[in-house]
């Protein structure tokens, strides 16, 4: 443990750590944002068209069984991206996160009580606006719960990319391991945990902002 101050005392190391941290944020959060959008669209499709639901559920079952490391390396072979391109990790994590979010979104949309949609319609809401103004906001708590799980899991999965040359903070683990040097490994673990915690806090704040009625004790 005494190594950590020594390790962190080097300005170059600190700069490299910041760069890895930013890489990590980028690699884990871009998939999160993309999959929120995808999951809302797909969730809506599932909600409106039953057959889509069955297909997507089986697909997400399959996606989940593929080890992340394999998926990272398979993507370039399947869609022709370059082997070291960060986009491989981003696409893989987007697949996992979308698979995680679609079902809860669809269920949350289905769970909106019919009297609420009926009142909205009666108030003159057109279907598209009713979706954005009524159904989607009511699905936010469930979506947020899924997003929080997704963010934690993405942040921890990005590290695996270090084994194929795109790993954000994960490279600290492989490098530290080769040098038998605990300091970078410990710093990497701590930074990952702090990142996960900070992102989670932000997500909770965001959720509370988007669902003021929950705090007010109101029920949909």
């Amino acid at each position: 443990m005494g190594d950590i101050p020594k390790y962190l005392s080097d300005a170059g190391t600190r700069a490299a750590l910041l760069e890895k941290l930013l890489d990590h944020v980028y690699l884990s959060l871009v998939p999160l944002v993309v999959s929120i959008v995808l999951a809302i669209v797909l969730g809506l499709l599932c909600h409106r068209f039953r057959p889509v639901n069955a297909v997507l559920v089986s697909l997400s079952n399959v996606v989940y069984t593929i080890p992340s490391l394999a998926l990272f390396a398979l993507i370039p072979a399947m869609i022709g991206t370059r082997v070291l391109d960060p986009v491989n990790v981003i696409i893989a994590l987007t697949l996992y996160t979308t698979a995680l979010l679609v079902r809860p979104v669809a269920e949350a949309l289905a769970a909106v009580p019919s009297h609420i949609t009926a009142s909205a319609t009666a108030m003159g809401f057109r279907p598209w606006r009713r979706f954005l103004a009524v159904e989607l906001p009511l699905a936010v708590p469930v979506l947020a719960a899924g997003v929080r799980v997704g963010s934690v899991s993405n942040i921890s999965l990005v590290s695996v990319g270090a084994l194929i040359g795109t790993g954000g903070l994960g490279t600290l683990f492989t490098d530290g391991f080769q040098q038998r040097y605990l300091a970078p490994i410990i710093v990497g673990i701590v930074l990952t945990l702090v990142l996960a915690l900070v992102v989670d806090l932000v997500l909770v704040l965001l959720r509370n902002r988007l669902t003021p009625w929950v705090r007010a004790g109101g029920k949909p």
Partner: protein
Amino acid sequence: MIFADAFGWLLDPANWSGGKSIPVRIGIHLLYCFGAVLGAALIAVPLGLFVGHTGRGGLVLVGGSNALRALPTLGLVTFLYLVVGGSTVSVLISLVVLAVPPILAGTYAGVQDVDRGVVDAARGMGMTGAQRLWQVEVPNAMPLLVGGLRNAMLQVVATASVAAFVGVETLGRPLLDGIRVLDYPQFVGGAILIALLAVVLDAVLAVVGRLVVPAGVRLSARTGKARPGSAASRRREVPTPVESGGSTA
């Protein structure tokens, strides 16, 4: 094309005999997975039952188990290897740490979700705390508990491949070795095996789950919305406690 080559690798007789054959690796992979899930269950189930039953420490538990989820396995396994020494021990501990949160979440949520009316009725009938736990709460918690176990197993099966980084002969070996040298048949073949193993183990646990869930509970679960067997229903069993712990974060 890639997949055809991968099947070629899978069917190559050379990969089916000797000390590094596919069956041997599947066996080792299974040992690690079952060892880890068993170890995690021994820790997480009693803890989840205790907290769920007494209602004490719920926030600490959820917060702690969320933090565990964020622990990167590659970091943990390299850390443990350098500190504890020995691949087997460090891989096992890492996988146990990975498996604890979902089992804990499932157990805790299972006990928590038991209809308060049912528990009160049990109390009214004069059941003691222990009787309520074993005769009412545990049977009712079974579906979610088994869900937690299945979820843990899925994660462990996939992650045991990353753990091969510190040198164990799991199915992660062909995956890691194949990726380093871009030997697609080898690593896609390895990935297919891991995916198949995940599906098979999940199905086995689903059957086991059906056997241990009492008929009455099964009936009410079916009329409810939980549909055991789909990924999303498993996943949904994870977010629930996360959601309930939301206020802590």
